[in-house]
């Protein structure tokens, strides 16, 4: 009886094989065919998968080249649930061949597929799984096999029963003293991964000694995995005192040749500070930050800049004022835009932290500088961060010092759209902090002008801002400021995109403000019924449909939807009839 109604499952294998041969001969990607393996597997029962499909998969694993082996490993990951917990360990045999591949990306996928299989075999002590693991890590195995074995350590630990776990830990010890540096590097990475699966009480006794030995190596290729592994160990140890010693050894001033080590140090500096504890971090971290922030690799500078603000709570308050701010000042003219943007974000995030001494004054000078930067990313970052800074600086200071510059940037419609977008996004924060009077004096027109901004992203930001401002400043404000402006746009603007912008703003307001629905929904309904442009009608129909999905209906909206359900425009008719029948 054909398994799928029109073809026998075994014939599917033959078909796949033919297709693979053709693709191979033509030099094309065999992955297209290999992706069909899980589909074929689903036509078999779990036992038939082992008897009929598995021999073919084993044959494939031996014959395929590197890239097809990668696709095979992906297919095996997809087939594991179909084989089921009883039979999935059989897939380890073809996976072993893939684990021996020299290509890193192929082996990584093979290890990932082993993880998927391991999840089905928890604590089963599966001899097939553990047997393959032991073959891969055998002394005579190639370094690539051993690297795969290192990647499999957490999975093997999960599969092993309580009595078998000691053997897995012993395997870690052997792999960590292998003569090949790449195997030792993989073992060091595995220490970090194992920390997440072993019992917490064993992290300090079993994993830490292995880590300390590997982290003391002179070879850069091994050391490059030290910091990520250390952070994982510290997380497993809950940043207790046990972390101090090994973190201090790693955190010494960065004269490292390897860029990757310096990038990792910058990326994980917050976790490292946490693990060191405040006292030690105060002594060690400032020098590291000073060196990394002026590193000659831009990615190092970027990573440390992104982490500066988060570092402050883990150090004594004076450190930021005495060390970080002078370092930021010295490097604020970085040649890389992304670094300047990150430094600007750090500066605005430092303001609300109320640092001692003259800190806020110095930070404001840096914000002034950022607002004059040639890059709109930097200017946008300065504006976006001002919201939380207002409470620390006071609304008067913000409005007198920064607003003239920001408003001038906003008015310059020739460029700087990200700046306008950033300003529109922080309007609700400004409104909440500054109060209605100050807001109305300076920023009312920003709301209304942004609805008709030539750039879509700015208009889009204005819809959410209009809705949030209504919440912050009240329906009366919306009724007296926003609604007249929206009506004026509809009356005079010939640009249909701006009418769509009004529809979206009305939708956002209707969603959040019950009291405004009777005012804004009729605007949408009118546009649906009377606008000459199909795009506007479609936007109106969709807005009313989405409001109905949210349980918001209005009589005028409903009648507009009903009368347009048979519109000549198919898309308009579609949304209208969906909304009326829902």
């Amino acid at each position: 009886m054909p398994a799928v109604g029109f073809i026998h499952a075994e014939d599917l294998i033959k078909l796949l094989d033919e297709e693979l041969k053709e693709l191979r001969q033509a030099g094309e990607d065999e992955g297209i065919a290999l992706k069909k393996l899980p589909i074929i597997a689903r036509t078999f029962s779990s036992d038939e998968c082992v008897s009929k499909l598995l021999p073919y998969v084993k044959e494939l694993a031996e014959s395929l080249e590197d890239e097809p082996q990668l696709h095979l490993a992906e297919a095996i990951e997809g087939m594991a649930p179909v084989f089921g917990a009883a039979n999935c360990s059989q897939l380890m045999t073809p996976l072993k061949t893939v684990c021996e591949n020299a290509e890193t990306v192929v082996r990584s996928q093979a290890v990932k597929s082993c993880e998927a299989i391991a999840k089905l075999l928890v604590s089963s002590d599966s001899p097939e799984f553990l047997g393959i693991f032991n073959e891969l890590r055998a002394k005579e195995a190639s370094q690539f096999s051993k690297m795969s074995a290192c990647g499999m350590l957490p999975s093997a630990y999960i599969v092993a029963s309580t009595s078998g776990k000691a053997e897995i830990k012993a395997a870690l010890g052997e792999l960590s003293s292998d003569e090949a540096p790449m195997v030792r590097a993989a073992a060091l990475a595995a220490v970090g991964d194992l920390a997440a699966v072993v019992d917490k009480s064993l992290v300090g006794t079993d994993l830490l000694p292995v880590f300390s030995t590997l982290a003391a190596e002179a070879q850069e290729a091994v050391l490059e995995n030290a910091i990520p592994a250390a952070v994982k160990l510290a997380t497993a140890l809950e940043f207790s005192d046990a972390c101090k010693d090994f973190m201090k050894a790693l955190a010494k001033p960065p004269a490292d040749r390897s860029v990757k080590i310096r990038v990792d140090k910058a990326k994980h500096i917050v976790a490292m500070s946490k693990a060191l504890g405040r006292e030690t971090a105060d002594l060690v971290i400032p020098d590291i930050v000073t060196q990394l922030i002026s590193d000659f690799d831009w990615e190092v500078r970027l990573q440390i800049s992104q982490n500066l603000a988060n570092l402050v709570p883990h150090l004594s308050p004076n450190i930021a004022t005495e060390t970080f701010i002078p370092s930021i000042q010295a490097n604020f003219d970085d040649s890389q835009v992304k670094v300047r943007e990150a430094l600007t974000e750090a500066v605005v995030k430092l303001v609300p932290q109320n640092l001692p001494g003259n800190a806020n004054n110095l930070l404001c000078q840096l914000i002034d500088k950022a607002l004059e930067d040639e890059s709109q990313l930097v200017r946008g970052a300065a504006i976006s961060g001002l919201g939380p800074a207002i409470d620390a600086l006071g609304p008067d200071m913000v409005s007198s010092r920064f607003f003239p510059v920001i408003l001038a940037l906003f008015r310059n419609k020739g460029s700087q759209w990200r700046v306008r977008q950033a300003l529109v996004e922080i309007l609700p924060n400004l409104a909440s902090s500054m109060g209605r009077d100050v807001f109305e004096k300076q920023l009312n027109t920003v709301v209304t002008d942004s609805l008709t901004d030539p750039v879509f992203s700015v208009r889009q930001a204005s819809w959410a801002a209009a809705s949030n401002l209504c919440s912050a400043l009240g329906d009366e404000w919306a009724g007296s400021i926003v609604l007249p402006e929206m009506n004026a746009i509809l009356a005079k603007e010939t640009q249909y995109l701006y009418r769509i912008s009004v529809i979206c703003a009305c939708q956002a307001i209707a969603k959040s403000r019950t009291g405004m629905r009777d005012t804004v929904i009729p605007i949408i309904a009118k546009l649906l019924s009377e606008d000459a442009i199909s795009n506007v009608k479609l936007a109106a129909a969709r807005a009313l449909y989405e409001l109905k999905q949210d349980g918001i209906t209005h009589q005028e909206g409903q009648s507009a939807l009903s009368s347009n359900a048979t519109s000549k425009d198919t898309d308009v008719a579609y949304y209208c009839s969906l909304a009326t029948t829902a």
Partner: protein
Amino acid sequence: MSIAYNSTMQLPPEFVSNLPMFSDVPVSEKPQLFLKKLKLCSVRFDFSPTSGFDQQKEVKRQTLLDLVEYVNAAKGPFSETVIAEFTKMIAANIFRPLPTRSRDQPFDPEEDEPILESAWTHLHIVYEFFLRFMVSTCTDAKVAKKFINTEFITKFLELFDSEDPRERDYLKTILHRIYGKLMVHRSFVRKSIANVFYRFIYETERHNGVAELLEILGSIINGFALPLKDEHKQFLKRALVPLHKPGCIGQYHQQLSYCISQYMEKDPTLADIIIKGILKFWPVTNSQKEILFLSELEELLELTQPQQFEVVAVPLFQVVARCIRSPHFQVAERALFLWNNEYIVQQMSKSLSDIIPLVYGPLHQNTVGHWNPTVLSLSQNVQKMFREIDSVAWDTYSSEYQALVDKSAAAKAKRDQVWARLQSAA
């Protein structure tokens, strides 16, 4: 790692500025003076623009030159203390962080200027000193091997990633001397070079010193005794052949080809491993690399014995067939030029039944419609050549060809139908 001193720092006590010249002291005091000068030269200076210490830098430079002269003129063996201090001085000077450029724009030696070492005024004398010390007959290998140990060699090899070609040149020469003199470390040097290659091939694909390392290996391989040890064959298979994988192969291809052809000459049975290995790394989208590979293949085929040629014929001509059909005219031309090589044509004639089915289709498609007239005419010439070698085999396949093409198209259409039905049933 040693600190680089600038004018904001205080110099260590071993930097004594007023040491006499060797010619000004009696013979009995020279060894002691030598040690003091070594300690002085262990102080490394910062050469960035405002680092200062100009006078002290000049003192060190003169002292280094003194040391070089002393070693050149030395007669008796160097003591263990001297060799220990010498190694410390060398390590203090050369083991330092190499300048890195932004990884957004990796270094292209054909386009970019390399970052030259700012401390070269000192460094080149240090390297010269190291070299003279290694070649000197006064340096006892049994003593030196204790200090120029595996840790030293590991750090030394990491310096090959320097962008400064002058530095790499010195490193190459010195490593070659270390290999020659310290026989106990030879195996470690070979393994460490292999590890550098593995990291380069499979992890970083960036290294400035691969060509220099291959140059050293070329002369090492040249000296291998026959029969080749299994270790050397594994090195070929796992480290050398995979060097064909990275895209920047153009930077070291000449040196790599030399190493590979040395292996072929020493052991022709390795042709199978070498040629199949190159075919495995055949480029898919990099046409310049494809042309490089075709040239290398031709050179290797000239060294291949007939029995080995038969073994590799099928996979080889599967790839050659794809190159013949390449829309890149230079690739197609280069592949078709293989038929200008008499030796290769002669070898081909022994495996015609395997080769004709592989190349017939691409040649036919070229003659019917390749956009480049040269490729078109070369394809016609190759067809003519096949007819001259064996017209019966050629004509037989010719009559079967169209039927095979039609059959393959029909099978594909049927398969696509089945998958579509399966997908909708799923």
